[in-house]
C-alpha cells in the first residue's frame, strides 16, 4: 500500500530505516522511531478497533498514555501481549498486531448490532436486565456477556519472558521529562543530589518536542536534547525513558515500570522484557504535564475525531498527516497551533472556535496565514461510520444554548481541543488534597501530605517562562535541603506566544429532532445520556455515578473523560465542579502487566528452595522429591519400576525388619543458652523441664496462648546452660519468633539467648531393630548399649574424624538414633552410614515411609497439630503439667476444652482391610443419614500399615475416648467413597512403646 499520509520531510523519525509490520494480517511499512499508531496513520489506517459496549468503529484519539481507543493485541516473541496501546508501542521490524473486541473482524463486526439496539443498553443495563431468574446468571448470561466483552485475550501459556524488580533510593525522583522535569532535574543535579528522571515515552522533552518556543538561543527541542545529554553525563543522575511512574505509595515509595524490551522484536537472553522499580525518594517532583480535554458533540467517537494536540504530535514528531481536509474544533488557542502546523505543511484547515471572538499572537498568526476561522461555531455531529467524511457544523448563540445555520461540510478529520487537564494522578495518590482552579476549569494539587511538589502543566501552569522559572527554583531548593550545596543556575530567556483565555464551553447541545450519541468516556462507551439517566435515577455521589455508568473505569481510567463527566454532573445538578468533587485516583496510572508485578517470583522462584547437604546423593540415588516447607526432601527412592506405594512400603518394612536411614536435616533446630534456659523451657513447654539432667533429651509440646498446640519436638540438655531444641520442619521460623517474643518482650529478666542452628547441622535418623549395631560400628569407642545410651539419652562422638552428636530419639517408633554433624560433613556422614550399614541391609527411606511409620505408631505430626487441636485431642494430655504455669495453660480450662465428649485422636481400620481411606474423609455414624450428615470428625492421616499389611488411618473424632471398638463409616464426598470402618487405638503398633526402649 502506498504511504500517502507521510510528509516528504519533517519529524523525528529515521527515514533511512524502513520497517515492515503487519496489522490484522496486512503488511505495512513505517520508519524507525514510529509508534504503531503513527505508522498506521501514515498508511491511512484509521479503523483500529471496536468499542466496548456498542462495538462502534474506533480509531485513534490521542498520541500517548491517554489513548482510549487504539488498544491492540500483539504477537511478539511467540507470546501474546494484550492491552497494548498502539500510541505507545514503538515500531520494530516484523511487529504483528491485531484489533480487539471485534468478531469476525474489525471491518465487519457482528457485535455492532449493539449499536443499533443502543436504546436497550442504557446505563445500568446489566444490573437491570440480568437479575432474573437468578440461576440464569452463571450458566447463561455471564458466559455470553463474557464472550462479547473484554479487550484482547490473555495467554493461557506460561509467560516465558523475564521480568525484574529493582529497588532504588534517591534524593529526587522526577516523574516526567517535559520543561518542568528537565529544569528541576538540572537544578537538583547541579546541587549534587541523586536524581532519577523518568519519562514514559521513548523521547525526552515532553511538550518541548511539539511547541514553537525558543529557550536561550535554541529551539525547545534542541534545549531539551542539550539538558538531557548533560544530565546523562552526570554520575549522580539516572535518566530513564520508556519508564512510567505509575504509583505513589506510603512513605514516599513510588513504583515505576520500565519497558525494557517492548520496543524490540524480541527480548535478549538475560535482559528483562519489563522492569519494575521500587523507588524510595526523599523528594518527588511531579512533572507529568497535562492532557488535552475533548469537546463533546454528536458521534464524537467516529474514527478521524481526535485531540488536536495528538494531530500536532503526529505532524511534528512523526511527519504524519492525520487528514488532508481537517476541521479544527476548539475553545482555546491550542487548536490554532495545530491549524498553523497543518497550514505550514500545505494543508488548509478550517478552525471552528466556540468563542465569540478572541485575539492573541497565535490567532493573529493564523489569520496572517489566511486560515479559515469561524468564531461562534461548533461541530454539531461527525458524519461517516468507519471514518469521518463530513461534519454538521453550526453557529452557536452567545448563551451557547441555540444552534443555527446548520450546514454539512466535507472533512476527513476533526481535531478537538477543549483546553487542558493537569495530570494530578500521582499527587492525588500521595494524599494531596487537590483543589479546583476556576481559571483552568480543572483540579490542581494543593496541600501535600508526603514529600511531593507538582510543577508545570501538571500544576496548572501553562506558560513556559513561568514553568522554567519555578522548576529551576524548586529543583534547586529541594536539593539544597538534602545536599546542603547550592550551585546557582541561571534561568534562560524564553520566547513563546502568549495565549488568550479559553472558553468554558465544552458540550454542544443536540439540534432539534436529533438524538446523536455524545460520548464522554470513549473506551467504556459512556454517553451524555447515560450520565443524565443515572442522575434521574437518583445517583448523586460522583463515586456512585462512576460505578453505575462505568465512567472513567476503563483501562485508560478516564484520562480524557473524567473532567467532562464532572462538568456534566455539576451542570445537571446545578452545582459547581468542586462541590461534586472528583473520584479517587488510584494506582496504577497506566496498566501494568501482571508479569512485571510478579517479577522473578515465578515457579520455583516464588520461594527459596533449600536443599540438605545430602541432596545430591539423593538425586543420584533416584530420590523422588517433595516440597516440605521451604525444603526439598526425598519422598521415596525409586528402585526399578516401583511406584510411590511400592517403594514407600518397601522402605518402611525395611525399617521395621532391619534398619533404615532418613535425612532429617530439615528439622528446625534452635540453640538455647543462658543461666535461665531451664526456667524458660519450663514456661514454653507444657511439661516439666527443670529437672532434665545434662545429657538427656525430652519430648515437649508447646502451646499458643489460646491453648492450641503450636509445635512439638525434642530438646536436649547439652550442658548445664546449653540446650538443643528441635522443631518441626514447617514451624521452625514461627517457633524462633515465638521464643524471641517472650524473651524480648514478656520476660526480659530471663538471661537466655536463642539462635537458629537449623542450617548448621546435617541430621540422619538411623531407625530399626538393627540400628544399634550400625551405631556401634560407626562409633566403635562408645558404649551405645541400652545402658550406655538409654532411650532419650545423648552423647557426643567422633564419626571417622568428624564431631557428631548422637540422640537416642525415635519418630518411627523403632529403636532409633539421630546423628548430627556439621553441615559440611553431612554427605560424608551419610555415605559412611550407608557403607557401614550395608551388612545390616540398611536402606534410605523418604518422607512417605517416615509418615507410614509414625502413623501406625500413632505419633502426631502436622496433620494432627493443625492449629485447631489442644493436647488432649492428640492424646498428649499426659504431658501437660498440673503443677506449673506455662504459655497457654490458662486457656486449657476453657469450658469447650474440658467437655466430656471432647474430640480425641483414634485409629481407623477399614472393615474389609483393603480399602484405603482418603485423607480428609468424614467419620459418620450412619452412612445413609439425611444431609447434612452430622460428622464426628475427620481422617487426618492415612497409610498402609506395613506391620499388619492393611490400611490404617488416624482420625480426630468427637468423644474419641469412648469410640474404640465402634463400627462407623468414613465418607469422602470428594472421592465419592463410603467405607465401613472400625475405630481402634491410635497406637496401632507397639502400643506400650517397648521397641524404642529395647
Amino acid at each position, binding site marked *: 500500500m502506498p504511504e500517502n499520509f507521510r510528509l516528504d520531510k519533517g519529524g523525528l523519525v529515521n527515514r533511512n530505516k524502513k520497517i515492515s509490520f503487519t496489522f490484522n494480517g496486512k503488511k505495512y511499512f513505517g520508519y524507525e522511531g514510529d509508534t504503531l499508531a503513527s505508522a498506521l496513520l501514515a498508511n491511512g489506517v484509521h479503523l483500529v478497533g471496536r468499542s466496548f459496549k456498542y462495538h462502534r468503529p474506533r480509531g485513534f484519539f490521542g498520541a500517548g498514555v491517554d489513548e482510549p481507543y487504539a488498544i491492540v493485541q500483539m504477537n511478539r516473541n511467540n507470546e501474546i501481549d494484550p492491552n497494548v496501546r498502539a500510541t505507545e508501542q514503538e515500531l520494530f521490524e516484523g511487529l504483528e498486531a491485531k484489533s480487539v473486541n471485534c468478531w469476525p473482524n474489525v471491518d465487519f463486526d457482528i457485535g455492532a448490532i449493539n449499536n443499533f439496539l443502543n436504546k436497550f443498553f442504557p446505563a445500568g443495563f446489566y444490573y437491570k436486565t440480568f437479575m432474573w431468574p437468578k440461576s440464569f446468571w452463571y450458566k447463561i448470561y455471564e458466559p455470553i456477556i463474557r464472550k462479547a466483552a473484554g479487550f484482547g485475550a490473555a495467554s493461557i501459556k506460561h509467560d516465558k519472558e523475564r521480568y525484574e524488580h529493582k529497588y532504588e533510593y534517591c534524593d529526587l525522583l522526577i516523574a516526567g521529562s517535559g520543561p518542568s522535569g528537565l529544569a528541576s532535574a538540572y537544578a537538583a543535579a547541579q546541587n549534587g543530589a541523586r536524581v532519577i528522571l523518568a519519562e514514559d515515552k521513548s523521547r525526552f522533552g515532553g511538550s518541548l518536542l511539539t511547541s514553537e518556543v525558543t529557550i536561550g538561543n535554541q529551539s525547545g527541542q534542541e534545549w531539551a536534547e542539550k539538558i538531557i545529554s548533560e544530565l546523562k553525563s552526570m554520575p549522580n543522575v539516572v535518566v530513564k525513558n520508556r519508564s512510567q511512574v505509575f504509583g505513589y505509595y*506510603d512513605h514516599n515509595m513510588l513504583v515505576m515500570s520500565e519497558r525494557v524490551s517492548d520496543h524490540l522484536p524480541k527480548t535478549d537472553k538475560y535482559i528483562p522484557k519489563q522492569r519494575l522499580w521500587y523507588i524510595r525518594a526523599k523528594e518527588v517532583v511531579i512533572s507529568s504535564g497535562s492532557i488535552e480535554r475533548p469537546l463533546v458533540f454528536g458521534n464524537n467517537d467516529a474514527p478521524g475525531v481526535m485531540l488536536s494536540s495528538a494531530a500536532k504530535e503526529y505532524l511534528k514528531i512523526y511527519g504524519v498527516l492525520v487528514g488532508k481536509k481537517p476541521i479544527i474544533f476548539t475553545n482555546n488557542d491550542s487548536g490554532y497551533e495545530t491549524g498553523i502546523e497543518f497550514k505550514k505543511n500545505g494543508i488548509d484547515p478550517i478552525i471552528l472556535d466556540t468563542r465569540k471572538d478572541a485575539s492573541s499572537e497565535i490567532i493573529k498568526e493564523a489569520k496572517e496565514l489566511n486560515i479559515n476561522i469561524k468564531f461562534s461555531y461548533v461541530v454539531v455531529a461527525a458524519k461517516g461510520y468507519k471514518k469521518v467524511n463530513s461534519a454538521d457544523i453550526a453557529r452557536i448563540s452567545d448563551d451557547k444554548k441555540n444552534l443555527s445555520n446548520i450546514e454539512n461540510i466535507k472533512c476527513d478529520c476533526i481535531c478537538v481541543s477543549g483546553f487542558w487537564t493537569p495530570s494530578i494522578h500521582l499527587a492525588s495518590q500521595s494524599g494531596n488534597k487537590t483543589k479546583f482552579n476556576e481559571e483552568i476549569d480543572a483540579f490542581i494539587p494543593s496541600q501535600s501530605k508526603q514529600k511531593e511538589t507538582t510543577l508545570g502543566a501538571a500544576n496548572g501552569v501553562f506558560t513556559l517562562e513561568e514553568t522554567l522559572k519555578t522548576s529551576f527554583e524548586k529543583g534547586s531548593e529541594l536539593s539544597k535541603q538534602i545536599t546542603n550545596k547550592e550551585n546557582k543556575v541561571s534561568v534562560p530567556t524564553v520566547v513563546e506566544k502568549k495565549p488568550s483565555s479559553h472558553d468554558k464551553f465544552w458540550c454542544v447541545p443536540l439540534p432539534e429532532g436529533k438524538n446523536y450519541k455524545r460520548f464522554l468516556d470513549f473506551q467504556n462507551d459512556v454517553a451524555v445520556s447515560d450520565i443524565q439517566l443515572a442522575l434521574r435515577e437518583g445517583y448523586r455521589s460522583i463515586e456512585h455515578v462512576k460505578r453505575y455508568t462505568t465512567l472513567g473505569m476503563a483501562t485508560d481510567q478516564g484520562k480524557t473523560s473524567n473532567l467532562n463527566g464532572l462538568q456534566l454532573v455539576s451542570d445537571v445538578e446545578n452545582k459547581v465542579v468542586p462541590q461534586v468533587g472528583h473520584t479517587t485516583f488510584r494506582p496504577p496510572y497506566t496498566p501494568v502487566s501482571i508479569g512485571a508485578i510478579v517479577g522473578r517470583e515465578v515457579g520455583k522462584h516464588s520461594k527459596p528452595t533449600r536443599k540438605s547437604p545430602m541432596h545430591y546423593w539423593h538425586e543420584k540415588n533416584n530420590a523422588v522429591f517433595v516440597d516440605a516447607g521451604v525444603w526439598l526432601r526425598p519422598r521415596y527412592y525409586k528402585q526399578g519400576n516401583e511406584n510411590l506405594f511400592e517403594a514407600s512400603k518397601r522402605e518402611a518394612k525395611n525399617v521395621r525388619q532391619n534398619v533404615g536411614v532418613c535425612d532429617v536435616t530439615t528439622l528446625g533446630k534452635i540453640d538455647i543458652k543462658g543461666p535461665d534456659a531451664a526456667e524458660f523451657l519450663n514456661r514454653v513447654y507444657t511439661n516439666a523441664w527443670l529437672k532434665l539432667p545434662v545429657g538427656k533429651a525430652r519430648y515437649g509440646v508447646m502451646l499458643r496462648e489460646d491453648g492450641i498446640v503450636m509445635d512439638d519436638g525434642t530438646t536436649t540438655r547439652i550442658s548445664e546452660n546449653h540446650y538443643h531444641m528441635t522443631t518441626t520442619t514447617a514451624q521452625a521460623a514461627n517457633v524462633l519468633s515465638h521464643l524471641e517474643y517472650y524473651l*524480648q518482650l514478656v520476660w526480659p529478666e530471663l538471661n537466655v539467648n536463642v539462635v537458629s542452628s537449623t542450617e548448621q547441622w546435617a541430621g540422619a535418623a538411623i531407625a530399626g531393630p538393627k540400628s544399634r549395631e550400625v551405631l556401634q560400628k560407626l562409633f566403635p569407642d562408645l558404649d551405645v548399649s541400652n545402658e550406655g545410651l538409654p532411650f532419650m539419652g545423648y552423647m557426643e562422638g567422633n564419626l571417622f574424624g568428624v564431631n557428631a552428636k548422637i540422640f537416642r530419639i525415635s519418630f518411627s517408633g523403632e529403636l532409633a538414633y539421630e546423628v548430627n554433624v556439621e553441615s559440611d560433613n553431612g554427605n560424608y556422614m551419610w555415605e559412611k552410614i550407608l557403607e557401614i550399614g550395608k551388612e545390616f541391609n540398611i536402606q534410605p527411606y523418604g518422607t512417605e515411609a517416615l509418615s507410614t511409620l509414625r502413623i501406625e505408631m500413632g505419633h502426631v505430626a502436622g496433620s494432627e497439630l493443625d492449629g485447631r487441636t489442644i493436647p488432649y485431642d492428640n492424646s498428649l494430655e499426659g504431658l501437660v503439667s498440673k503443677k506449673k504455669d506455662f504459655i497457654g495453660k490458662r486457656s486449657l480450662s476453657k469450658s469447650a476444652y474440658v467437655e466430656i465428649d471432647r474430640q480425641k485422636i483414634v485409629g481407623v481400620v477399614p472393615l474389609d482391610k483393603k480399602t484405603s481411606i482418603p485423607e480428609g474423609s468424614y467419620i459418620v455414624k450412619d452412612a445413609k443419614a439425611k444431609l447434612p450428615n452430622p460428622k464426628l470428625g475427620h481422617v487426618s492421616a492415612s497409610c498402609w500399615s506395613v506391620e499388619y499389611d492393611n490400611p490404617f488411618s488416624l482420625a480426630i473424632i468427637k468423644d474419641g475416648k469412648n469410640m474404640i471398638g465402634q463400627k462407623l463409616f468414613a465418607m469422602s464426598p470428594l472421592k465419592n467413597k463410603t467405607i465401613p470402618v472400625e475405630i481402634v487405638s491410635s497406637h496401632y503398633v507397639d502400643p506400650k512403646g517397648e521397641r524404642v526402649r529395647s
Partner: protein
Amino acid sequence: MLYIKCPHCGLRPQTEFSYGGDATVKRPELNKEISDQDWDNFVYLRKSPRGKHLELWQHISGCRQWIKVERDTLTHEIFTTYKASENI
C-alpha cells in the same frame, strides 16, 4: 510500602519486618489467678483504633529484635519507634 525506623538498625523497608499486633497488651503474670473474662480479653480482644496505635513489629530479616512502633492506622504515618526494653 512503609519505611520503618528500627531503633537498632535505622530506616528499613516494611518487607524486612513482620507485624506483631497491639504493643500495649500485657501478658498476665505467671502463676496468678485470673478470671475467665480477663484471660479472654488478653487472648482475643484487641482494639482497632482509627489513628495513633502503638504496635509491635519484629525486624525479622534484620536484627530479629521486636520493636514498638507508634503508627497512625489511618494515614500510616509513623511517629516514634522504640526498643522492646523501652517503656512508653
